[in-house]
Protein backbone atom coordinates (compact mmCIF):
# COMPACT_ATOMS: atom_id res chain seq x y z
CA UNK A 1 0.00 0.00 0.00
CA UNK A 2 2.80 2.45 0.82
CA UNK A 3 5.16 2.64 -2.13
CA UNK A 4 5.00 -0.71 -3.80
CA UNK A 5 3.15 0.54 -6.85
CA UNK A 6 4.83 0.73 -10.25
CA UNK A 7 6.31 4.18 -10.86
CA UNK A 8 4.91 6.61 -13.40
CA UNK A 9 7.04 8.43 -15.97
CA UNK A 10 7.13 12.20 -16.17
CA UNK A 11 6.48 12.80 -19.86
CA UNK A 12 6.32 16.60 -19.88
CA UNK A 13 6.47 19.51 -17.47
CA UNK A 14 4.93 22.85 -18.32
CA UNK A 15 5.45 26.06 -16.40
CA UNK A 16 2.13 27.81 -15.71
CA UNK A 17 3.42 30.75 -13.65
CA UNK A 18 6.47 31.77 -11.63
CA UNK A 19 5.74 29.21 -8.91
CA UNK A 20 3.44 26.68 -10.58
CA UNK A 21 4.17 23.76 -12.89
CA UNK A 22 1.93 21.16 -14.56
CA UNK A 23 3.37 17.64 -14.66
CA UNK A 24 2.12 15.30 -17.38
CA UNK A 25 2.60 11.81 -15.96
CA UNK A 26 2.31 8.54 -17.84
CA UNK A 27 0.79 5.76 -15.74
CA UNK A 28 1.94 2.17 -16.30
CA UNK A 29 -1.66 1.32 -17.29
CA UNK A 30 -4.66 3.45 -18.33
CA UNK A 31 -5.76 5.40 -15.27
CA UNK A 32 -9.37 6.19 -14.46
CA UNK A 33 -10.34 8.98 -12.05
CA UNK A 34 -13.27 11.22 -11.24
CA UNK A 35 -13.01 15.03 -11.37
CA UNK A 36 -11.95 16.34 -7.94
CA UNK A 37 -9.93 13.29 -6.89
CA UNK A 38 -6.26 13.46 -5.97
CA UNK A 39 -3.11 11.34 -6.02
CA UNK A 40 -0.22 11.02 -3.58
CA UNK A 41 2.95 12.07 -5.41
CA UNK A 42 6.31 10.93 -4.07
CA UNK A 43 9.49 12.98 -4.53
CA UNK A 44 12.18 10.33 -3.96
CA UNK A 45 13.59 10.44 -0.45
CA UNK A 46 11.96 13.79 0.31
CA UNK A 47 8.31 13.11 0.87
CA UNK A 48 4.88 12.40 -0.44
CA UNK A 49 2.09 14.98 -0.84
CA UNK A 50 -1.54 15.06 -1.99
CA UNK A 51 -2.01 16.72 -5.38
CA UNK A 52 -5.30 16.97 -7.25
CA UNK A 53 -5.58 15.70 -10.78
CA UNK A 54 -5.92 18.70 -13.10
CA UNK A 55 -6.42 17.10 -16.51
CA UNK A 56 -9.28 15.77 -18.60
CA UNK A 57 -10.88 12.61 -17.15
CA UNK A 58 -11.30 11.39 -20.72
CA UNK A 59 -7.51 11.27 -21.07
CA UNK A 60 -6.31 8.10 -19.36
CA UNK A 61 -2.73 7.74 -20.50
CA UNK A 62 -1.37 11.13 -19.54
CA UNK A 63 -2.46 12.38 -16.14
CA UNK A 64 -1.92 16.03 -15.28
CA UNK A 65 -1.07 17.50 -11.88
CA UNK A 66 -0.62 21.23 -11.40
CA UNK A 67 1.65 22.00 -8.47
CA UNK A 68 2.51 25.20 -6.68
CA UNK A 69 6.04 25.23 -5.27
CA UNK A 70 5.55 26.07 -1.59
CA UNK A 71 7.91 23.75 0.30
CA UNK A 72 10.35 20.87 0.17
CA UNK A 73 8.26 18.26 -1.62
CA UNK A 74 6.41 20.51 -4.02
CA UNK A 75 9.72 22.19 -4.89
CA UNK A 76 11.31 18.85 -5.74
CA UNK A 77 8.27 17.83 -7.81
CA UNK A 78 8.21 21.12 -9.72
CA UNK A 79 11.91 20.74 -10.50
CA UNK A 80 11.69 17.13 -11.70
CA UNK A 81 13.16 16.72 -15.20
CA UNK A 82 11.05 14.93 -17.82
CA UNK A 83 11.92 11.26 -18.15
CA UNK A 84 12.16 10.79 -14.38
CA UNK A 85 10.09 8.13 -12.66
CA UNK A 86 7.76 9.33 -9.92
CA UNK A 87 5.90 7.34 -7.29
CA UNK A 88 2.14 7.80 -7.54
CA UNK A 89 -0.66 6.32 -5.42
CA UNK A 90 -4.29 6.99 -6.09
CA UNK A 91 -6.83 8.08 -7.03
CA UNK A 92 -8.20 9.00 -3.60
CA UNK A 93 -11.13 10.93 -2.21
CA UNK A 94 -14.58 12.05 -3.21
CA UNK A 95 -15.39 13.82 -6.47
CA UNK A 96 -17.41 16.75 -7.79
CA UNK A 97 -21.07 15.61 -7.97
CA UNK A 98 -21.62 16.54 -11.60
CA UNK A 99 -24.82 14.47 -11.71
CA UNK A 100 -26.37 16.60 -8.96
CA UNK A 101 -25.78 19.66 -11.10
CA UNK A 102 -27.52 18.29 -14.19
CA UNK A 103 -30.59 20.14 -15.36
CA UNK A 104 -29.64 23.43 -13.74
CA UNK A 105 -26.93 26.06 -13.78
CA UNK A 106 -23.41 25.10 -12.73
CA UNK A 107 -21.23 27.76 -11.07
CA UNK A 108 -17.54 26.95 -10.65
CA UNK A 109 -15.55 29.18 -8.33
CA UNK A 110 -11.76 28.98 -8.03
CA UNK A 111 -9.19 30.95 -6.07
CA UNK A 112 -5.45 30.64 -6.85
CA UNK A 113 -4.24 27.04 -6.92
CA UNK A 114 -7.92 26.08 -6.58
CA UNK A 115 -8.43 26.14 -10.35
CA UNK A 116 -6.50 22.92 -11.16
CA UNK A 117 -8.71 20.65 -9.00
CA UNK A 118 -11.77 22.12 -10.76
CA UNK A 119 -10.47 21.85 -14.31
CA UNK A 120 -11.45 18.17 -14.75
CA UNK A 121 -15.03 19.15 -13.80
CA UNK A 122 -14.97 21.94 -16.37
CA UNK A 123 -13.80 19.53 -19.09
CA UNK A 124 -16.48 17.06 -18.10
CA UNK A 125 -19.24 19.68 -18.07
CA UNK A 126 -18.15 20.98 -21.48
CA UNK A 127 -18.10 17.44 -22.87
CA UNK A 128 -21.73 17.00 -21.79
CA UNK A 129 -22.67 20.62 -22.23
CA UNK A 130 -26.33 19.86 -23.01
CA UNK A 131 -26.88 18.43 -19.53
CA UNK A 132 -26.55 21.84 -17.88
CA UNK A 133 -28.23 25.19 -18.28
CA UNK A 134 -25.78 28.05 -17.70
CA UNK A 135 -22.14 27.22 -17.10
CA UNK A 136 -20.21 29.87 -15.18
CA UNK A 137 -16.54 29.98 -14.18
CA UNK A 138 -15.39 32.57 -11.63
CA UNK A 139 -11.66 32.65 -11.00
CA UNK A 140 -9.39 34.89 -8.98
CA UNK A 141 -5.64 35.14 -8.44
CA UNK A 142 -3.37 37.50 -6.55
CA UNK A 143 -1.96 39.25 -9.62
CA UNK A 144 -2.31 38.84 -13.40
CA UNK A 145 1.03 37.02 -13.40
CA UNK A 146 -0.34 34.37 -11.05
CA UNK A 147 -3.20 33.41 -13.36
CA UNK A 148 -3.02 29.76 -14.44
CA UNK A 149 -4.06 28.22 -17.74
CA UNK A 150 -4.27 31.66 -19.39
CA UNK A 151 -4.38 30.32 -22.97
CA UNK A 152 -7.23 28.02 -22.08
CA UNK A 153 -9.07 30.79 -20.21
CA UNK A 154 -8.89 32.92 -23.35
CA UNK A 155 -10.34 30.06 -25.42
CA UNK A 156 -13.11 29.45 -22.89
CA UNK A 157 -13.98 33.14 -22.86
CA UNK A 158 -14.48 32.91 -26.61
CA UNK A 159 -17.23 30.31 -26.19
CA UNK A 160 -20.83 31.42 -26.08
CA UNK A 161 -21.90 28.54 -23.86
CA UNK A 162 -19.53 29.38 -20.97
CA UNK A 163 -19.39 32.57 -18.91
CA UNK A 164 -15.90 33.31 -17.58
CA UNK A 165 -15.17 36.07 -15.08
CA UNK A 166 -11.62 36.57 -13.86
CA UNK A 167 -10.46 38.88 -11.11
CA UNK A 168 -7.15 39.72 -9.43
CA UNK A 169 -6.45 41.15 -5.99
CA UNK A 170 -3.93 43.58 -7.41
CA UNK A 171 -3.76 44.58 -11.08
CA UNK A 172 -0.84 45.88 -13.09
CA UNK A 173 -0.48 48.41 -15.91
CA UNK A 174 -1.72 46.05 -18.60
CA UNK A 175 -4.62 44.57 -16.65
CA UNK A 176 -8.01 45.56 -18.08
CA UNK A 177 -10.11 43.08 -16.13
CA UNK A 178 -11.77 42.93 -12.71
CA UNK A 179 -9.88 43.90 -9.59
CA UNK A 180 -11.24 42.60 -6.30
CA UNK A 181 -11.96 39.39 -4.45
CA UNK A 182 -13.67 36.32 -5.87
CA UNK A 183 -16.84 36.39 -3.71
CA UNK A 184 -17.68 39.80 -5.21
CA UNK A 185 -18.04 38.14 -8.62
CA UNK A 186 -21.08 36.19 -7.43
CA UNK A 187 -23.16 39.35 -7.58
CA UNK A 188 -22.09 40.08 -11.16
CA UNK A 189 -23.24 37.00 -12.98
CA UNK A 190 -26.68 35.84 -13.97
CA UNK A 191 -27.87 32.43 -12.84
CA UNK A 192 -30.96 30.73 -11.49
CA UNK A 193 -30.26 30.16 -7.76
CA UNK A 194 -33.10 27.69 -7.26
CA UNK A 195 -31.60 25.12 -9.64
CA UNK A 196 -27.94 26.12 -9.46
CA UNK A 197 -25.12 23.98 -8.12
CA UNK A 198 -21.78 25.47 -7.10
CA UNK A 199 -18.34 23.86 -6.87
CA UNK A 200 -15.50 25.77 -5.24
CA UNK A 201 -11.86 25.51 -4.21
CA UNK A 202 -9.69 28.20 -2.75
CA UNK A 203 -8.39 29.56 0.54
CA UNK A 204 -10.85 28.85 3.38
CA UNK A 205 -11.59 32.53 3.86
CA UNK A 206 -12.45 32.96 0.19
CA UNK A 207 -14.75 29.94 0.33
CA UNK A 208 -16.50 31.21 3.47
CA UNK A 209 -17.41 34.50 1.78
CA UNK A 210 -18.32 32.81 -1.48
CA UNK A 211 -20.68 30.43 0.32
CA UNK A 212 -22.29 33.35 2.08
CA UNK A 213 -22.83 35.20 -1.21
CA UNK A 214 -24.31 32.07 -2.84
CA UNK A 215 -26.66 31.33 0.06
CA UNK A 216 -27.78 34.95 0.10
CA UNK A 217 -28.76 34.61 -3.53
CA UNK A 218 -30.77 31.55 -2.67
CA UNK A 219 -28.60 28.59 -3.67
CA UNK A 220 -29.54 25.71 -1.32
CA UNK A 221 -26.89 24.51 1.20
CA UNK A 222 -26.86 21.00 -0.19
CA UNK A 223 -26.01 22.21 -3.70
CA UNK A 224 -22.90 24.09 -2.65
CA UNK A 225 -19.76 21.90 -2.70
CA UNK A 226 -16.32 22.72 -1.36
CA UNK A 227 -13.00 20.93 -1.63
CA UNK A 228 -11.29 21.17 1.76
CA UNK A 229 -7.66 20.92 2.70
CA UNK A 230 -5.88 19.56 5.76
CA UNK A 231 -2.51 17.96 6.34
CA UNK A 232 -2.52 14.52 4.75
CA UNK A 233 0.13 11.87 5.14
CA UNK A 234 -1.35 8.51 4.24
CA UNK A 235 -4.51 9.09 2.15
CA UNK A 236 -5.75 5.76 3.54
CA UNK A 237 -7.87 7.14 6.42
CA UNK A 238 -5.29 5.90 8.93
CA UNK A 239 -2.87 8.69 9.90
CA UNK A 240 -5.44 11.00 11.49
CA UNK A 241 -4.02 14.25 10.09
CA UNK A 242 -6.80 15.14 7.66
CA UNK A 243 -9.53 15.31 10.29
CA UNK A 244 -12.06 18.06 10.01
CA UNK A 245 -14.66 17.37 12.67
CA UNK A 246 -16.21 13.98 11.89
CA UNK A 247 -14.67 13.84 8.42
CA UNK A 248 -11.45 12.24 7.32
CA UNK A 249 -10.86 14.40 4.28
CA UNK A 250 -8.87 11.80 2.34
CA UNK A 251 -11.82 9.39 2.60
CA UNK A 252 -14.99 11.47 3.12
CA UNK A 253 -13.58 14.48 1.25
CA UNK A 254 -11.92 16.47 -0.08
CA UNK A 255 -15.23 17.40 -1.75
CA UNK A 256 -18.09 17.86 0.74
CA UNK A 257 -21.34 19.78 0.63
CA UNK A 258 -21.80 22.94 2.62
CA UNK A 259 -24.67 21.24 4.41
CA UNK A 260 -22.18 18.70 5.79
CA UNK A 261 -19.55 21.31 6.59
CA UNK A 262 -21.64 24.18 7.94
CA UNK A 263 -21.20 23.40 11.64
CA UNK A 264 -17.47 23.02 11.28
CA UNK A 265 -16.16 25.64 8.92
CA UNK A 266 -17.76 28.49 10.77
CA UNK A 267 -15.35 27.69 13.63
CA UNK A 268 -11.80 28.89 13.93
CA UNK A 269 -8.96 26.38 14.34
CA UNK A 270 -11.13 23.31 13.79
Amino acid at each position, binding site marked *: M*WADTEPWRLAAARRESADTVTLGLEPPAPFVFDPGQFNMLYAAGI*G*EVPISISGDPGQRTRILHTIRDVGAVTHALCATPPGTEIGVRGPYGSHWPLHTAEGGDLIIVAGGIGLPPLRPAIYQALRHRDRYQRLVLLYGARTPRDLLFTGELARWRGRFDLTVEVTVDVGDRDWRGNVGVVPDLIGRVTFEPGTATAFMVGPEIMMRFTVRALLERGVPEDRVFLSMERNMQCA*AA*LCGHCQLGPFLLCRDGPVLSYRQLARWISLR*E*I
Partner: protein
Amino acid sequence: MRYVLDLGGLGQLLAALRQRGFRLIGPVVADGAICYGEITSAADLPAGWTDEQDGGTYRLKRRDDGALFGYNVGPQSPKKYLFPASATLWRSHPPGTADTDDEKPFAFIGVRSCELHAIAVQDRVFLGGQHPDPLYAARRDGAFIVAVNCGQAARTCFCVSMSAGPKADAGFDLALTELTGEGGHRFLAETGTPRGEEVIADTPGAQPASPRDATAADQIIERTAAQMGRAMPAVDLRDLLYGNLEHPRWDDVAARCLTCGNCTMACPTCFCFSVEDVTDLAGRAAERNRSWDSCFTLDHSYIHGGPVRTSARSRYRQWMTHKLATWTGQFGTSGCVGCGRCITWCPAGIDITEEVAAIAADT
Protein backbone atom coordinates in the same frame (compact mmCIF):
# COMPACT_ATOMS: atom_id res chain seq x y z
CA MET B 1 -16.54 -23.65 29.67
CA ARG B 2 -15.07 -22.60 33.02
CA TYR B 3 -11.99 -24.19 34.54
CA VAL B 4 -9.88 -23.60 37.57
CA LEU B 5 -6.08 -23.71 37.69
CA ASP B 6 -3.55 -23.08 40.41
CA LEU B 7 -0.19 -21.32 40.05
CA GLY B 8 1.38 -24.46 38.62
CA GLY B 9 -1.49 -24.71 36.16
CA LEU B 10 -0.91 -21.14 35.03
CA GLY B 11 2.74 -22.02 34.41
CA GLN B 12 1.61 -24.97 32.29
CA LEU B 13 -0.75 -22.74 30.37
CA LEU B 14 2.02 -20.30 29.48
CA ALA B 15 4.30 -23.19 28.55
CA ALA B 16 1.55 -24.60 26.31
CA LEU B 17 1.33 -21.26 24.51
CA ARG B 18 5.10 -21.11 24.03
CA GLN B 19 5.03 -24.65 22.78
CA ARG B 20 2.54 -23.57 20.13
CA GLY B 21 4.98 -20.99 18.88
CA PHE B 22 3.60 -17.84 20.49
CA ARG B 23 5.74 -14.98 21.69
CA LEU B 24 4.52 -14.21 25.21
CA ILE B 25 3.86 -10.57 26.09
CA GLY B 26 2.74 -9.86 29.62
CA PRO B 27 2.93 -7.47 32.56
CA VAL B 28 6.39 -6.83 34.01
CA VAL B 29 7.72 -4.31 36.49
CA ALA B 30 9.87 -1.82 34.57
CA ASP B 31 10.75 1.85 35.07
CA GLY B 32 8.69 2.11 38.23
CA ALA B 33 5.48 0.97 36.59
CA ILE B 34 3.78 -2.17 35.35
CA CYS B 35 4.52 -2.29 31.65
CA TYR B 36 4.08 -4.82 28.87
CA GLY B 37 7.19 -6.83 28.02
CA GLU B 38 8.38 -10.20 26.79
CA ILE B 39 7.94 -12.93 29.37
CA THR B 40 8.98 -16.55 29.38
CA SER B 41 7.11 -17.93 32.39
CA ALA B 42 4.80 -17.05 35.25
CA ALA B 43 7.90 -16.13 37.28
CA ASP B 44 8.23 -12.94 35.21
CA LEU B 45 4.77 -11.67 36.26
CA PRO B 46 4.54 -8.86 38.84
CA ALA B 47 3.75 -11.07 41.87
CA GLY B 48 2.71 -9.06 44.90
CA TRP B 49 2.67 -5.68 43.16
CA THR B 50 -0.16 -3.25 42.80
CA ASP B 51 -0.53 0.32 41.63
CA GLU B 52 -2.15 3.37 43.12
CA GLN B 53 -3.44 5.89 40.62
CA ASP B 54 -5.14 9.25 40.59
CA GLY B 55 -5.10 12.38 38.44
CA GLY B 56 -1.43 12.96 37.63
CA THR B 57 -0.12 10.25 39.97
CA TYR B 58 0.95 6.63 39.71
CA ARG B 59 2.73 4.66 42.41
CA LEU B 60 3.77 1.02 42.63
CA LYS B 61 3.05 -0.63 45.94
CA ARG B 62 3.48 -4.08 47.46
CA ARG B 63 0.46 -6.18 48.27
CA ASP B 64 0.61 -9.08 50.68
CA ASP B 65 -1.40 -11.74 48.85
CA GLY B 66 1.18 -12.44 46.11
CA ALA B 67 -1.41 -11.71 43.38
CA LEU B 68 0.03 -11.79 39.85
CA PHE B 69 -2.57 -9.48 38.32
CA GLY B 70 -3.36 -7.38 41.37
CA TYR B 71 -2.80 -4.03 39.63
CA ASN B 72 -4.90 -2.04 37.17
CA VAL B 73 -3.54 -0.64 33.94
CA GLY B 74 -0.03 0.71 33.40
CA PRO B 75 1.14 3.39 30.99
CA GLN B 76 1.29 0.92 28.10
CA SER B 77 -1.22 -1.31 26.38
CA PRO B 78 -1.00 -4.02 23.70
CA LYS B 79 -0.88 -1.09 21.25
CA LYS B 80 2.88 -1.08 21.99
CA TYR B 81 3.10 -4.31 19.95
CA LEU B 82 0.20 -4.13 17.53
CA PHE B 83 0.93 -0.56 16.47
CA PRO B 84 4.57 0.05 17.47
CA ALA B 85 5.70 3.60 18.22
CA SER B 86 7.88 3.58 15.12
CA ALA B 87 8.19 1.33 12.11
CA THR B 88 9.50 1.22 8.57
CA LEU B 89 6.70 1.06 6.01
CA TRP B 90 8.83 0.64 2.95
CA ARG B 91 12.50 0.33 1.99
CA SER B 92 14.03 0.68 -1.46
CA HIS B 93 16.83 -1.77 -0.55
CA PRO B 94 16.17 -4.62 -0.63
CA PRO B 95 13.43 -3.48 -3.01
CA GLY B 96 9.97 -3.23 -1.55
CA THR B 97 10.75 -4.58 1.92
CA ALA B 98 8.97 -3.37 5.07
CA ASP B 99 8.77 -4.10 8.79
CA THR B 100 6.15 -6.77 8.37
CA ASP B 101 6.37 -9.14 11.23
CA ASP B 102 7.76 -12.45 10.15
CA GLU B 103 8.34 -13.31 13.78
CA LYS B 104 6.09 -15.54 15.85
CA PRO B 105 2.52 -14.44 16.60
CA PHE B 106 1.91 -12.71 19.92
CA ALA B 107 0.15 -14.14 22.93
CA PHE B 108 -0.88 -11.27 25.19
CA ILE B 109 -1.22 -12.21 28.85
CA GLY B 110 -3.19 -10.16 31.36
CA VAL B 111 -5.19 -8.01 28.94
CA ARG B 112 -7.98 -6.08 30.69
CA SER B 113 -11.50 -5.62 29.42
CA CYS B 114 -10.87 -1.96 28.54
CA GLU B 115 -7.83 -3.08 26.54
CA LEU B 116 -9.87 -5.69 24.65
CA HIS B 117 -12.26 -2.91 23.74
CA ALA B 118 -9.33 -0.70 22.72
CA ILE B 119 -8.00 -3.46 20.45
CA ALA B 120 -11.46 -3.73 18.89
CA VAL B 121 -11.40 0.03 18.29
CA GLN B 122 -7.99 -0.11 16.63
CA ASP B 123 -9.08 -3.13 14.58
CA ARG B 124 -11.79 -0.93 13.12
CA VAL B 125 -9.39 1.91 12.44
CA PHE B 126 -6.57 -0.12 10.92
CA LEU B 127 -8.43 -3.03 9.37
CA GLY B 128 -12.02 -1.89 8.91
CA GLY B 129 -11.58 0.57 6.04
CA GLN B 130 -10.92 0.45 2.35
CA HIS B 131 -7.13 0.46 2.84
CA PRO B 132 -6.24 -1.91 5.69
CA ASP B 133 -2.83 -1.31 7.26
CA PRO B 134 -0.57 -4.26 6.33
CA LEU B 135 1.72 -3.75 9.32
CA TYR B 136 -1.06 -3.80 11.88
CA ALA B 137 -2.68 -6.73 10.09
CA ALA B 138 0.55 -8.76 10.23
CA ARG B 139 0.99 -8.13 13.96
CA ARG B 140 -2.64 -8.63 14.86
CA ASP B 141 -3.08 -11.77 12.78
CA GLY B 142 -3.29 -14.89 14.90
CA ALA B 143 -2.60 -13.07 18.19
CA PHE B 144 -3.76 -15.10 21.19
CA ILE B 145 -5.31 -13.18 24.06
CA VAL B 146 -5.42 -14.24 27.69
CA ALA B 147 -7.58 -11.61 29.37
CA VAL B 148 -7.81 -10.96 33.08
CA ASN B 149 -10.94 -9.69 34.78
CA CYS B 150 -9.94 -6.83 37.08
CA GLY B 151 -10.00 -7.72 40.80
CA GLN B 152 -10.03 -4.05 41.77
CA ALA B 153 -10.61 -0.68 40.14
CA ALA B 154 -8.26 2.29 40.24
CA ARG B 155 -9.40 5.76 41.20
CA THR B 156 -9.00 6.70 37.54
CA CYS B 157 -11.07 3.83 36.11
CA PHE B 158 -14.43 4.50 34.45
CA CYS B 159 -14.89 1.53 32.11
CA VAL B 160 -18.35 0.77 33.50
CA SER B 161 -19.67 4.11 32.26
CA MET B 162 -18.12 3.46 28.84
CA SER B 163 -19.65 -0.06 28.66
CA ALA B 164 -16.13 -1.44 28.34
CA GLY B 165 -15.61 -3.48 31.52
CA PRO B 166 -14.63 -4.63 34.02
CA LYS B 167 -15.63 -8.12 32.83
CA ALA B 168 -14.04 -9.31 29.61
CA ASP B 169 -17.05 -9.96 27.38
CA ALA B 170 -15.55 -10.59 23.93
CA GLY B 171 -12.33 -10.63 21.98
CA PHE B 172 -10.35 -13.09 24.11
CA ASP B 173 -9.29 -16.70 23.79
CA LEU B 174 -9.15 -17.20 27.54
CA ALA B 175 -10.25 -14.94 30.39
CA LEU B 176 -8.87 -15.43 33.90
CA THR B 177 -10.18 -14.23 37.23
CA GLU B 178 -7.59 -14.35 39.98
CA LEU B 179 -8.79 -15.74 43.33
CA THR B 180 -6.53 -15.32 46.35
CA GLY B 181 -8.73 -15.81 49.42
CA GLU B 182 -10.18 -18.94 50.90
CA GLY B 183 -9.42 -22.00 48.82
CA GLY B 184 -5.93 -20.82 47.89
CA HIS B 185 -4.33 -18.82 45.11
CA ARG B 186 -5.96 -19.93 41.88
CA PHE B 187 -7.46 -18.73 38.62
CA LEU B 188 -10.86 -19.24 37.18
CA ALA B 189 -10.46 -19.60 33.41
CA GLU B 190 -13.24 -19.04 30.91
CA THR B 191 -12.72 -20.04 27.30
CA GLY B 192 -13.76 -17.66 24.55
CA THR B 193 -12.68 -19.54 21.42
CA PRO B 194 -12.01 -23.12 20.30
CA ARG B 195 -8.31 -22.19 20.36
CA GLY B 196 -8.66 -21.29 24.02
CA GLU B 197 -10.32 -24.63 24.64
CA GLU B 198 -7.42 -26.44 22.92
CA VAL B 199 -4.81 -24.68 25.02
CA ILE B 200 -6.72 -25.56 28.19
CA ALA B 201 -6.78 -29.18 27.03
CA ASP B 202 -2.96 -28.99 26.96
CA THR B 203 -2.87 -27.65 30.52
CA PRO B 204 -2.95 -30.75 32.76
CA GLY B 205 -3.56 -28.65 35.89
CA ALA B 206 -6.83 -27.22 34.57
CA GLN B 207 -9.89 -28.74 36.28
CA PRO B 208 -13.55 -28.01 35.66
CA ALA B 209 -14.52 -25.14 37.96
CA SER B 210 -16.79 -25.80 40.93
CA PRO B 211 -19.90 -23.64 41.28
CA ARG B 212 -18.25 -22.13 44.37
CA ASP B 213 -15.21 -20.92 42.39
CA ALA B 214 -17.46 -19.56 39.67
CA THR B 215 -19.51 -17.62 42.20
CA ALA B 216 -16.38 -16.29 43.89
CA ALA B 217 -15.12 -14.98 40.53
CA ASP B 218 -18.45 -13.35 39.71
CA GLN B 219 -18.46 -11.62 43.08
CA ILE B 220 -14.98 -10.24 42.50
CA ILE B 221 -16.05 -8.71 39.20
CA GLU B 222 -19.18 -7.24 40.76
CA ARG B 223 -17.10 -5.70 43.53
CA THR B 224 -14.73 -4.16 40.98
CA ALA B 225 -17.61 -2.70 39.03
CA ALA B 226 -18.94 -1.10 42.20
CA GLN B 227 -15.48 0.38 42.94
CA MET B 228 -15.09 2.54 39.83
CA GLY B 229 -13.20 5.67 40.79
CA ARG B 230 -14.82 7.84 38.17
CA ALA B 231 -17.71 7.88 35.71
CA MET B 232 -18.32 9.53 32.38
CA PRO B 233 -21.51 11.61 32.69
CA ALA B 234 -24.43 9.67 31.23
CA VAL B 235 -25.35 12.18 28.52
CA ASP B 236 -25.30 11.99 24.73
CA LEU B 237 -21.65 12.94 24.35
CA ARG B 238 -21.94 13.68 20.65
CA ASP B 239 -24.82 16.10 21.13
CA LEU B 240 -23.13 17.67 24.13
CA LEU B 241 -19.81 18.32 22.41
CA TYR B 242 -21.18 19.24 18.97
CA GLY B 243 -23.37 21.77 20.73
CA ASN B 244 -20.53 23.24 22.79
CA LEU B 245 -17.61 23.68 20.44
CA GLU B 246 -17.24 27.28 21.62
CA HIS B 247 -17.85 26.63 25.34
CA PRO B 248 -15.71 28.73 27.75
CA ARG B 249 -14.57 25.52 29.43
CA TRP B 250 -12.14 24.99 26.54
CA ASP B 251 -10.32 28.15 27.62
CA ASP B 252 -10.31 26.92 31.18
CA VAL B 253 -8.74 23.57 30.34
CA ALA B 254 -6.33 25.26 27.91
CA ALA B 255 -4.94 27.29 30.81
CA ARG B 256 -3.99 24.01 32.53
CA CYS B 257 -2.99 21.84 29.56
CA LEU B 258 0.73 21.80 28.72
CA THR B 259 0.04 20.29 25.25
CA CYS B 260 2.65 17.66 26.12
CA GLY B 261 0.73 14.89 24.38
CA ASN B 262 1.21 12.35 27.21
CA CYS B 263 -2.49 11.56 27.12
CA THR B 264 -2.31 10.57 23.45
CA MET B 265 0.80 8.42 23.95
CA ALA B 266 -0.74 6.55 26.90
CA CYS B 267 -4.15 6.13 25.28
CA PRO B 268 -4.71 2.61 23.95
CA THR B 269 -6.90 3.81 21.06
CA CYS B 270 -5.03 6.90 19.80
CA PHE B 271 -3.76 6.01 16.33
CA CYS B 272 -2.40 9.17 14.68
CA PHE B 273 0.99 8.75 13.08
CA SER B 274 3.33 10.84 10.98
CA VAL B 275 5.16 9.61 7.93
CA GLU B 276 8.73 10.55 7.14
CA ASP B 277 10.72 9.77 4.02
CA VAL B 278 14.48 9.54 4.41
CA THR B 279 17.46 8.63 2.25
CA ASP B 280 21.02 7.67 3.06
CA LEU B 281 23.64 10.34 2.44
CA ALA B 282 24.43 9.04 -1.02
CA GLY B 283 20.74 9.25 -1.90
CA ARG B 284 20.73 5.65 -3.11
CA ALA B 285 18.58 3.92 -0.50
CA ALA B 286 15.29 5.45 0.55
CA GLU B 287 13.00 4.51 3.40
CA ARG B 288 9.52 5.50 4.55
CA ASN B 289 9.04 5.47 8.31
CA ARG B 290 6.10 6.15 10.51
CA SER B 291 5.93 7.09 14.17
CA TRP B 292 3.21 7.95 16.68
CA ASP B 293 2.05 11.50 16.37
CA SER B 294 -0.14 13.54 18.68
CA CYS B 295 -2.84 16.08 17.92
CA PHE B 296 -1.23 18.20 20.65
CA THR B 297 1.73 19.02 18.38
CA LEU B 298 1.64 21.98 16.01
CA ASP B 299 2.92 19.82 13.17
CA HIS B 300 -0.16 17.62 13.37
CA SER B 301 -2.32 20.26 11.70
CA TYR B 302 0.41 21.93 9.64
CA ILE B 303 -0.48 22.97 6.14
CA HIS B 304 1.39 25.38 3.94
CA GLY B 305 1.00 28.76 5.60
CA GLY B 306 0.94 27.45 9.17
CA PRO B 307 -0.78 25.06 11.55
CA VAL B 308 -4.58 25.05 11.62
CA ARG B 309 -4.78 24.46 15.38
CA THR B 310 -2.37 26.93 16.96
CA SER B 311 -3.97 27.40 20.39
CA ALA B 312 -3.97 24.89 23.25
CA ARG B 313 -7.72 25.43 23.38
CA SER B 314 -8.23 24.17 19.84
CA ARG B 315 -5.90 21.20 20.33
CA TYR B 316 -7.49 20.01 23.57
CA ARG B 317 -10.90 20.46 21.94
CA GLN B 318 -9.74 18.43 18.93
CA TRP B 319 -8.49 15.62 21.16
CA MET B 320 -11.51 15.38 23.42
CA THR B 321 -14.19 15.84 20.78
CA HIS B 322 -12.39 13.26 18.66
CA LYS B 323 -12.27 10.69 21.46
CA LEU B 324 -15.86 11.13 22.54
CA ALA B 325 -17.82 12.38 19.55
CA THR B 326 -16.31 12.64 16.07
CA TRP B 327 -14.66 9.20 16.34
CA THR B 328 -18.15 7.73 16.12
CA GLY B 329 -18.73 9.50 12.81
CA GLN B 330 -15.37 8.31 11.50
CA PHE B 331 -15.28 4.70 12.68
CA GLY B 332 -18.69 3.87 14.14
CA THR B 333 -17.43 3.48 17.71
CA SER B 334 -16.38 5.68 20.61
CA GLY B 335 -12.66 6.41 20.83
CA CYS B 336 -12.64 6.07 24.61
CA VAL B 337 -12.83 2.86 26.64
CA GLY B 338 -12.59 4.41 30.09
CA CYS B 339 -9.16 3.06 31.03
CA GLY B 340 -8.19 6.28 32.79
CA ARG B 341 -4.61 6.40 31.47
CA CYS B 342 -4.96 9.94 30.17
CA ILE B 343 -5.95 11.04 33.69
CA THR B 344 -3.12 9.22 35.46
CA TRP B 345 -0.39 10.23 33.03
CA CYS B 346 -1.37 13.86 32.56
CA PRO B 347 1.23 15.96 34.38
CA ALA B 348 -1.49 18.52 35.05
CA GLY B 349 -3.97 15.92 36.30
CA ILE B 350 -6.57 16.90 33.70
CA ASP B 351 -9.51 14.53 33.89
CA ILE B 352 -11.56 13.88 30.76
CA THR B 353 -14.64 12.91 32.83
CA GLU B 354 -14.43 16.12 34.83
CA GLU B 355 -14.09 18.25 31.68
CA VAL B 356 -17.21 16.63 30.23
CA ALA B 357 -19.05 17.07 33.52
CA ALA B 358 -18.16 20.77 33.61
CA ILE B 359 -19.58 21.32 30.13
CA ALA B 360 -22.64 19.17 30.86
CA ALA B 361 -23.35 21.04 34.11
CA ASP B 362 -23.42 24.30 32.22
CA THR B 363 -25.57 23.26 29.27
